[in-house]
């Protein structure tokens, strides 16, 4: 009996560990590449007729020599700092605009009854059903041709915010719906205006949802490549993902810089995740009613 249990456990672990390795192996490879100090995509040079051990060594995600050269050179030799800055500005502006509009819109959708409410929510949902690339051309025409906002922060921010908002509105509306209306009525009788209720009651209570929304908006902008590569024409205006692509373009293949850049790009998102983790708790409204 105990044997069967143990055997099942072993199999379970074999399967789980295999999938875990599958998931983190590429990440480890990029990490190793970034610390390798070289530009090739392989980590070691295999001899002409490699032995099994040498082949095995070849697939281990460990660089032949450890070096931070790629990291320093990405900053000094390349324009990477500039691109990071662009990404940061665009992402923060997208987050601010996206969260502000999503919060106010979601509150209205959650609490008020007005003509077009259901249709509006449905349109938001439908807009999520199309792949982003489908909107590339219309967005290009609107932002670049009509509004003349090509190659600017603002143009990209508008595009990112509009693509992020529908999801954020649905997300926030769902959360606002769970905040009992009694609390607001109680505040109304206490003498609070709609704005006071929104700012001092609803927003503090919705912190977890707003944190997620902010994270989502930020990541939408931070990781996006296709739109940014179309809208940002001059190299000085590249965002980090576009810049990364620049390292392994048609004529160069600086995989070391690419890997180091990727690691740097992912750091803010990781930091943000850790920072916002404390908000990703449910049950903030527990104890308010009943």
């Amino acid at each position, binding site marked *: 009996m105990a044997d069967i249990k143990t055997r099942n456990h072993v199999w379970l672990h074999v399967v789980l560990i295999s999938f875990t390795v599958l998931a983190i192996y590429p990440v480890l490879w990029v990490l190793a590449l970034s610390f390798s100090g070289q530009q090739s995509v392989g980590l070691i040079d295999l001899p002409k007729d490699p032995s099994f051990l040498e082949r095995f060594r070849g697939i281990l995600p460990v660089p032949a020599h450890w070096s931070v050269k790629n990291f320093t050179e990405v900053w000094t030799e390349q324009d990477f700092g500039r691109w990071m800055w662009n990404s940061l500005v665009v992402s923060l502006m997208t987050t601010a605009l996206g969260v502000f509009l999503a919060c106010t819109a979601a509150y209205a959708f959650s609490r008020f009854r007005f003509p077009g409410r259901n249709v509006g929510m449905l349109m938001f949902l439908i807009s999520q059903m199309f792949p982003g690339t489908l909107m590339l051309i219309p967005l290009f025409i609107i932002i670049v041709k009509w509004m003349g906002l090509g190659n600017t922060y603002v143009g990209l921010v508008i595009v990112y915010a509009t693509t992020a908002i529908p999801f954020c509105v649905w997300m926030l509306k769902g959360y606002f719906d769970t905040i009992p209306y009694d609390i607001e*009525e109680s505040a109304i*009788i206490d003498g609070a205006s709609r704005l006071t209720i929104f700012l001092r009651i609803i927003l503090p209570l919705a912190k977890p949802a707003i944190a997620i929304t902010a994270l989502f908006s930020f990541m939408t902008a931070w990781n996006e490549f296709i739109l940014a590569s179309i809208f940002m024409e001059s190299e000085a205006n590249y965002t980090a993902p576009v810049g990364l692509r620049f390292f392994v373009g048609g004529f160069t293949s600086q995989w070391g810089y690419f890997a180091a850049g990727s690691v740097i790009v992912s750091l803010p998102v990781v930091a943000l995740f850790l920072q916002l983790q404390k908000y990703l708790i449910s049950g*903030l409204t527990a*104890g*308010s*009613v009943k």
Partner: protein
Amino acid sequence: MASIRFDKIGKSYGDTEVIKNLDFTVNDGEFMVFVGPSGCGKSTVLRMIAGLETITSGELWIGDRVVNDVHPKDRDIAMVFQSYALYPHMNVFDNIAFGLKIRKLPNAEIQQRVKGVADMLGLDKFLDRKPKALSGGQRQRVALGRAIVRNPSVFLFDEPLSNLDAELRVQMRAEISNLQRRLNTTTVYVTHDQVEAMTMGQRIAVLRACDSASSLDTNLMQCGSPMDLYDRPDNVFVARFIGTPHMNILPARLSDDGTEVELLGGRMPVSAQFKEGALAMRGRDVILGIRPEHIGAAHEIDWAQTQTLQGQVEMVELLGHEAILHFKVGEHVLTGRLHSHGSLPAVGDTVSMQLKCDAIHLFDKVTELRLR
């Protein structure tokens, strides 16, 4: 201080009329209870006083002004919700102080008033706690504190005790009553629990659902002191609703000269208070009401005039100080009262019970109104 006057108040949602023709006054400093089964509109009426629901027709007066179009915050009212509706992200102090802060009172005064209320309600030790760290009773007190601290001219309570356990409910019932007596603030209290209504209210308004299909011309079935409602119910609805166990409601018929009632094959004289009404309705079918405490065993009572009812025992409910006897006479199940320490009949026994003749209530069979 203020009275609340309902002047032909009505409320509709689209074509559906939920409140019809409410016309009565809650006096200054009075503790008025709205009671009725769920869906009777009592909460809607309360919310109309609060300003959380619009009024479709009629005028609502608080003190000497019509408040139909006055914003809730300017009505000088405070409301305690069934769910307490505390602000979960604020501690007890901030919860109580919120209304004062919104009204931009000086900080020193806020401190002083919140402290005063917290002392009064025994919350002084919990001022730093968030609502989720409080027990049900304590949360209820915070909700009370939030209402009291603003010193409003009207208190509104929307079933505030229904989330508490039985023991705490009895305790809070007494606390709220005492508080109201001390503050002497006009209070409207909504409940579906007629025991709460009887024990707390100086006056009770019994409401009934009033959809467009029903022939009722108002939701208000009766408004009066608890004993008024108990002793002289205006109609069958109130008679049945007030009092536990419920009043027995039976079909009866007035004799051709209107001096006697025929009930379940027996006859008994009409009591003095119904003399005129019975004369007008002579020879017609009526509805007879009799409270369980007016049906007893012959050896336990000394009533002057009684009518004997013979029936078969269906159930005996032992309450300790007394027992409620359910017995079947013909096709009707009646409830009567026995002393619990005597020898109690068993289910299936045939019993002979006495009905107190001068304690009967008579109602018109068609209108269900009390005969007068």
